[in-house]
């Protein structure tokens, strides 16, 4: 029942399934496996949008989604991650504030997540939820908290990563922060309604060719303004054309490792090394990991 309604993109039904994939209780793993089984193979692409807070990621998403809906008959889900308070654990889920999709538009779905006060740009359950959304929607957009420690996560999660930048004053070349510039597949220079944008664009172009000598060709740099809508259609078209890059197996392997690290730390990594834990599927592996490692620890000691 719920599954059929979710396939028809009924919002409440989709939302309830998303909640299962966000559920932190152990018994949810079994439910997830059943749901995925019933829904069949994933079919969509995942687009990653990253960049420093305030660059205009959410504002762009608010523009891009309607443009994508207008340009195609595909459906689009957005998963937006916001930072949580280290003191109370609560988060202000502010990305949604920027968007205002038409009510009742089933082809668009927006869900906010809290990063649960962890350092990464994603929520602990972001990967889980994309597993679901990829079976329901044609395109899944993930907006990260911002550029930071574990940007590698988004690289594995997404088939194409867009880094959103805003024009800079003067000639500081901040774009070049080590590590960051190597992740994105494309660049978006937003806020091009700002006169400083032109200069920033040329700086970015020249610094890119220096910083990424390994690229065969200079990656695309789009120029947009979420305020005026300039350049948005072009990015929307590009996003619709993105092809899958990772297989689900690759993704599962990476995020299983991340999960083990979060939950069990270095010990978990050691236990994992050399074992074929994922043979029975991701959810089963998670369910069996706890008992397995406990037993192993008992023997080691």
């Amino acid at each position: 029942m719920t599954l059929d309604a979710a396939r028809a993109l009924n919002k409440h039904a989709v939302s309830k399934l998303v909640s299962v994939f966000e559920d932190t209780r152990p018994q949810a793993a079994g439910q997830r496996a059943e749901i995925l089984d019933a829904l069949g193979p994933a079919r969509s692409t995942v687009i990653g949008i990253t960049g420093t807070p305030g660059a205009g990621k959410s504002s762009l998403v608010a523009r891009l989604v309607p443009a994508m809906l207008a340009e195609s008959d595909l459906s689009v889900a957005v998963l937006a991650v916001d930072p949580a308070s280290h003191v109370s654990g609560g988060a202000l889920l502010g990305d949604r504030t920027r968007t205002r999709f038409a009510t009742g538009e089933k082809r668009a779905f927006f869900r906010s997540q809290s990063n649960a006060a962890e350092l990464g740009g994603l929520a602990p359950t972001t990967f889980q939820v994309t597993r679901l959304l990829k079976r329901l929607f044609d395109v899944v957009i993930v907006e990260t908290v911002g550029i930071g420690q574990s940007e590698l996560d988004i690289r594995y999660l997404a088939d194409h990563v867009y880094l959103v930048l805003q024009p800079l004053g003067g000639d500081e070349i901040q774009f070049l922060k080590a590590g960051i510039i190597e992740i994105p597949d494309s660049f978006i220079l937003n806020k091009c309604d700002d006169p400083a944008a032109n200069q920033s664009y040329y700086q970015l172009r020249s610094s890119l060719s220096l910083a990424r000598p390994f690229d065969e060709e200079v990656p695309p740099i789009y120029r947009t303004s979420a305020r005026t809508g300039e350049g948005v259609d072009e990015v929307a078209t590009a996003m619709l054309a993105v092809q899958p890059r990772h297989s689900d197996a690759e993704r599962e392997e990476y995020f299983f490792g991340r999960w083990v690290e979060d939950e069990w730390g270095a010990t978990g990594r050691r236990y994992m090394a050399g074992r074929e834990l994922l043979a029975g599927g991701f959810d089963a592996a998670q369910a069996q990991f706890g008992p397995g490692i406990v037993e192993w620890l008992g023997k080691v000691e």
Partner: protein
Amino acid sequence: MSTPAALPERDRPWIIRTYAGHSSAKASNELYRSNLEKGQTGLSIAFDLPTQCGYDSDDPIARPEVGKVGVPINSLDDFHVLFDGIPLEKMNTSMTINGTAMWLLALYVALARERGEDESKLQGTTQNDLIKEYLARGTYIFPPEASMRLIAEMYEYCLEAIPKWNASNICSYHLQEAGATPVQELAFALANAISLLDLLKERGHFDDEQFERAVGRISFFVNAGIRFVEEMCKMRAFGELWDSYTADRFGVTEEKYRRFRYGVQVNSLGLTEAQPENNAWRIILESLGVTLSRNARCRALQLPAWNEAMSLPRPWDQQWSLRLQQILAYETDLLEYPDLFDGSPVVQAKVQELMDEATAEIETILGMGGVIPAIESGYMKTALVRSMSERMSAINSGDQIVVGLNKWTEGLPSPLTAGDDGGIFKVDDKAAEAIIAGLEHTRASRDTARAEAAIEALKAAARDGSSLMEPSIECALARVTTGEWAGALREVFGEYRPATGIEGQQLGLTGDRVEVLRERINTLAEQMGHRPRIVVGKPGLDGHSNGAEVIAVSARHVGFDVIYSGIRLSPDEIVQSAVEEGADVIGASVLSGSHIDLAKQILEGLREQDADEDIAVVVGGIIPPADATELEAMGIKRVFTPADYELMDIMESIVEILEAR
């Protein structure tokens, strides 16, 4: 402070104002006429929220609000009724109108033209300060740049065509109601006025002589709070700062054009629902701040009523406040003396301190490029929400005493609330149907081709940058409606949603109660498999955001995941947010009086989506006891009013609702 050349023996009393809204053009017209017969010469018009926000009365978002807090105006036909039998040339008409100020002025001019009255003799004021709308009052429509353009065009039109019209009124009143400190009130209002003058200068429409006169037309609408000594000093600081900015930055040489002219409404934020009779004393003390010092005395004063936190005032409540002013002006010896504080070192030092701090803040804002960037970046709004959160925290912790609310709360029951009506005003909400019929008649009887052409010409002017005043007047004459005028400009300029200012805010509350609540929420999170989520929603056109902001900040402070998307969302949008986000609770805040309609729409929306079992709904705001019972019968889980000022109590009751599931 500059002293007027020759002081009359006794100062003239300030203008005594009352401000009221009425349900229809016809009812308002009757009231105006009876007041005019009694010798009143000015009109002060309150419009309903749809008119203020640019919607026709039959727009779905307008329906619950039609005629509630003021008169609905859909087209020039309504203006004919509103001013029937009232000679415009002789009236001083003040309109509390902002987002659609140009439209209402255009209607007024069109009315004069149609009636053959002399347009150049019109006198009055359109409030027309959009900066404070983004920050506090909420009836904005377009983005800041477009809004400022409309204001500037009105100054440019009025200066020669209607020289006695005040195109706008810079308001700090609303900022204090949204939590502003005296320094913030000074700084934000003055930065606003300075930015407006910068814009007028930059547009180059005025020559130097005209520019000086335009400066002279700028007047202010200020607040006066309970700390009346400091408030009196604030008024003196306002006067001195304005004098020096207009002289130094704008080179205004005529002293009279540099004078700080201001009207006042005293503070209402501090008026309580608990022991409401105490408010009468608060209102008197607040009046002192703006009347005591002759050199900083207001030109006009309007007062709220003792039952401010309960409902709109009844006629008797207004009369009681009016009498207060009359006693102050005519029974006391207040007006007989020259300034009482000139030369006081204490006052001088306080004024200097306020001026220094305000100047620093003004320079910060001007350094950002003026008020437009300071709105767009959320800088000013964030500062206000911070002040408001600090204020609420201080009241909660007891550091700030509010008599009858957090101290000396025991008392005898008040006879003022013992009457049949409980001291509460009931709005006649039957008027809406007749109004919508009138609107339909206008649409059906007008020359469609002329109306369409007028709208096209308006859009063309909006695009090419020429003045929108004449095209708006033509729209008025062609019987274009309020919703159509605003809709056409929305198409060109877009609609604006300003920053909510709540990001990164916290309460100043710590200690056991907070810790225990956080623990309870952590436990709930483990049991439910997710951290509890609340959507704080402001349905409809109500712009009172303080309560929603404070609740959103409090909820995050104790550990909820919070979604708050600002004011003016439809019930459907709020339901959709809650459903998509998998929220556990919707907390709707409604202070406009439309809580029954709006709560009904939210509950129906949830039922339609089959989500009513999963999402609990609580409501807060100005809700009379009888309505609270009705809401709970409807399925609202809890109702909160201003008497529930303890934020941790509120959070606890929401947690209890979730724990009980």
